[in-house]
Structures are given as structure tokens and as C-alpha cells.
């Protein structure tokens, strides 16, 4: 019989004595998330510009990203590890891969969603291509882009827990230790702590992005006395392999 089945579910004393372990795991988790989302964002931005320049390439790019997105993380690690060995490289490649579809779709949909009259006005004012992109299209696409970053970041925080299996730290390491040492008295503490902290981090970043969006798009702020509207859930849509430019 394992001790997971007895003793306290959470050993607060152990937590108090191991704050340094928890701090280290938090830093590792944050680092890996930041690296993955950062590289993913740069890459998706490049892909989005490519897709907007040559329209025919979008279904191909989106199709490739959605295949990547559908591969289970453990399997993707399993395919990468024989090539790269264990460590940061397979983890970052896989995590970046999962952000691409979300970010690409949102960036393209955001830029596509800029109203035609706005674009024409910018053209009429003599903005040439890149300048219009930087000064008009991208700022107007900002809410959609930030929404994409928000989903990508929250998803990545969850996926980083699995990178413990390619030998990296982070909260996944706490969970993995808990599962591996089932007879240790702190086993359930480790599992609950790892999962709980990962959820807390995801929620914190979710709220952080809501705040960033609020600050970055002052023109979208509602007047204070607006009527309270019911929140409509966004359906969890399957991402079609050859999604059209307008959906998002």
C-alpha cells in the first residue's frame, strides 16, 4: 500500500520548508513559457505576413500548423527526442509548434478584419505598404493579436508541465516527483502543488492579458454606464485544416 493513500493530502509544513524548490520551479516554468511564446510569436508574425502577401500560401501554412497542433504532446516529444536528445531543444520546438496555429489565425484574422474604408483612407493619405501595416493595420489588429497571445500563453503554461518528461524543470517536475515517489509522505503534496501552481500561473496570465488589452486599446473602452450584457461563450471550434481567411 502506498502512502499516497494515507497521511495529509497537503503537507503545509513541507511546503514551508521547500519554498526555494518552489521558487526555482516557478522561474523555470516562466522561462520556458516566455521562450516558447516569444519564438512562437515572432515566427507566426513572419508566417502571417507571408500569408497576407501570398494568399494561396495561407491554407498550406494553416494546414501544416493544424497538423502540428493535433499531435499529442507526449508523442511529439517522443518523435523529437531521438533526433535532438533530451533537454531544452525538443521542449522548445514542441511548445513553439503548439503556439503557431493559434497565433497565426489570430494575427491574420485581426489584420483581415481591418475595415476596408480605414485601409483606403490610409492609402489615400499616402501611407505606403509597410508604413500602413505598422501604423494602421497592426494597431487595429491588436485586440485579436492579444487575444491570440492570451490563449497561446495559457495553453503553453499547461503544456510546460509535460516537459518534465524530456528532463526539464518547472511545475511538471514537482508532479513527476510526486508520481515517481508514491511512497514518500509528500507525494500527494507534490502532485497537488505542481498542478495548483500551474493553474494559478495560467489564471494570472489570463487576467494580465485582459489588462494589457485594456491598456493597449483605449479606443475600445466602453463608456462606464453601458448596460450589462450577458457574456456569450465562444464555441470551442475545431480548427479546419484549410481554414478560410475570414474565420477566427
Amino acid at each position, binding site marked *: 500500500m*502506498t502512502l*499516497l*493513500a494515507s497521511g495529509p*493530502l497537503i503537507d503545509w509544513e513541507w511546503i514551508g520548508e521547500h519554498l526555494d524548490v518552489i521558487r526555482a520551479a516557478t522561474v523555470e516554468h516562466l522561462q520556458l513559457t516566455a521562450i516558447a511564446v516569444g519564438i512562437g510569436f515572432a515566427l507566426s508574425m513572419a508566417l502571417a505576413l507571408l500569408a497576407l502577401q501570398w494568399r494561396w500560401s495561407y491554407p498550406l501554412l494553416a494546414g501544416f500548423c493544424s*497538423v502540428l497542433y*493535433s*499531435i*499529442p*504532446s*507526449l*508523442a*511529439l*516529444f*517522443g*518523435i523529437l*527526442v*531521438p*533526433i535532438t536528445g*533530451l533537454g531544452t531543444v525538443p521542449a522548445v520546438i514542441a511548445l513553439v509548434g503548439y503556439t503557431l496555429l493559434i497565433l497565426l489565425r489570430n494575427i491574420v484574422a485581426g489584420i483581415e478584419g481591418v475595415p476596408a474604408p480605414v485601409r483606403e483612407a490610409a492609402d489615400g493619405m499616402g501611407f505606403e505598404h509597410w508604413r500602413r501595416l505598422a501604423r494602421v493595420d497592426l494597431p487595429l489588429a491588436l485586440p485579436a493579436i492579444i487575444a491570440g497571445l492570451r*490563449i497561446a500563453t*495559457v*495553453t503553453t*503554461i*499547461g*503544456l510546460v*508541465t*509535460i516537459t518534465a*518528461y524530456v528532463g526539464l524543470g518547472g511545475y*511538471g517536475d514537482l*508532479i*513527476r516527483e*510526486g*508520481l515517481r515517489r*508514491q511512497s514518500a509522505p509528500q507525494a*500527494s503534496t507534490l*502532485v*497537488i502543488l*505542481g*498542478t495548483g501552481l*500551474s*493553474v494559478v500561473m*495560467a*489564471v494570472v496570465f*489570463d487576467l494580465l492579458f485582459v489588462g494589457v488589452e485594456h491598456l493597449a486599446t483605449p479606443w475600445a473602452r466602453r463608456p462606464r454606464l453601458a448596460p450589462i450584457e*450577458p*457574456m*456569450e*461563450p*465562444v*464555441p*470551442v*471550434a*475545431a*480548427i*479546419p*485544416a484549410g*481554414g*478560410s481567411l475570414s*474565420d*477566427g
Partner: protein
Amino acid sequence: MGDAWSDMWTYLGSDAAWTGRNGLPLLLWAQLKLAFAAMAIATVLAIPVAAFLGHVRRGTLLAVSIVNIGRAVPTYGVVALVLPFSLRWGFGLGFWPTLVALVLLAIPPIFTNTYTGVRGVPADAVEAASGMGMRARELLRKVEVPAALPLILTGLRVSAVQVMATATLGAVVGYRCLGTPIVIGMQRQNKGPLLAASILVAALALGTDGLFALVQRLLVPWRRQPAS
């Protein structure tokens, strides 16, 4: 990489890959069994409740919260978290904790899409149907659920792909499935079984997605693009 491929072919050529309780056929069967059970339970639990709430037009906050929570909780965390409770209540390692985790993971997309779909049925259609004398039950069965079908199928598709993928993680809580050669292969650098099982799992997830795309095409021929 070259030696990983040749390791895989050597492994696939050996008896170990095809027979016994660590052979790929039995591991694949275990994975499918678990995924089917989880999807069946989640569907039976989520669709009636969500359809009813959509019909009475209550529970939007619940639907929104379920999606947000579902996104924030890591799937690996759910699988791991169920374990201490499973051991405490005597369900042990393996099948049961993994099943519970997968059901929890499968519910959010099915629930939210059913709710959103039923709630979004145009008021005219609902009024016309009740004007024809349909009662709540009939209205749900003949009008609201069929009209919400594209979204419900999309929800089932998202859940099924996720469940098939996450069933792999059952290996970390002692369920012998296709994740077992992956987890052990990574620890011991046993590349043959690792690569073979990984490719099989990837194909399984993509295949599930494709299968549901086909089902959507057949059942909802009037709408060739999945709703998004």
C-alpha cells in the same frame, strides 16, 4: 536520427512489438477502450444538461467558466491529481483514475458547444415550432438539437481528439497503453519502441480528427465548413 529509425524497424520486426502485454496491438486496444469509455460517459453526462440549460436559456456564465477552467488546468495535472484520490478511495492505479481524468477533460467542449448551439437557435424557429404545438421535449428533440448539430459535432470532435491524445498520459499513472513505451523509452533511451509508439499516437490523433471531419460532412451536408 538514422539509428533511431533503424532501431524502430528492428523493434517492429521483432516479436516484442506484436505479442504479449507490451505488444503494440494490446497497447493500442487499451488506449482505444479507455478513450471510447471516456467519450461515452462524457457525452451522456454533458449533452442532456447542456441542451436543457440552452433550452431554458440559463447558464451562460457556467458555460464560459467551464471553458476557461478547462483551458487553465493542464491535462497532465488532471491525470496526476486524480491519482491521490483514487488511491485513497481504493480504486488503485491504472484504468479508473485515467478514466475519471479523461471524462473531466472531455466535458468542457461538449458542454459549451451544445449549450451555445441550442441557445443560438433562432427565436423565430423556436416560436414557429411552439406555435405548431410542440412541447419542450419535442422542441428540443426535433428543432433545437438538430439545429445545434454542427456545433455539437464540433464539440465532440475537439473532445475526442483531446481524449485520444491524453489517454497516452495514462501511462504515467500506471495504465498500460501506448504512452507506456513512450515514457519508458524516454527514461531508458530505448528509441525503437519510443519512436514507434509516438508515431502511432500521432497517427491516432490525426485519424480521430479526420474521422470526425468525415462524420460532420455526412451528418451536416448543408454546412461543409465546421462552424468557427
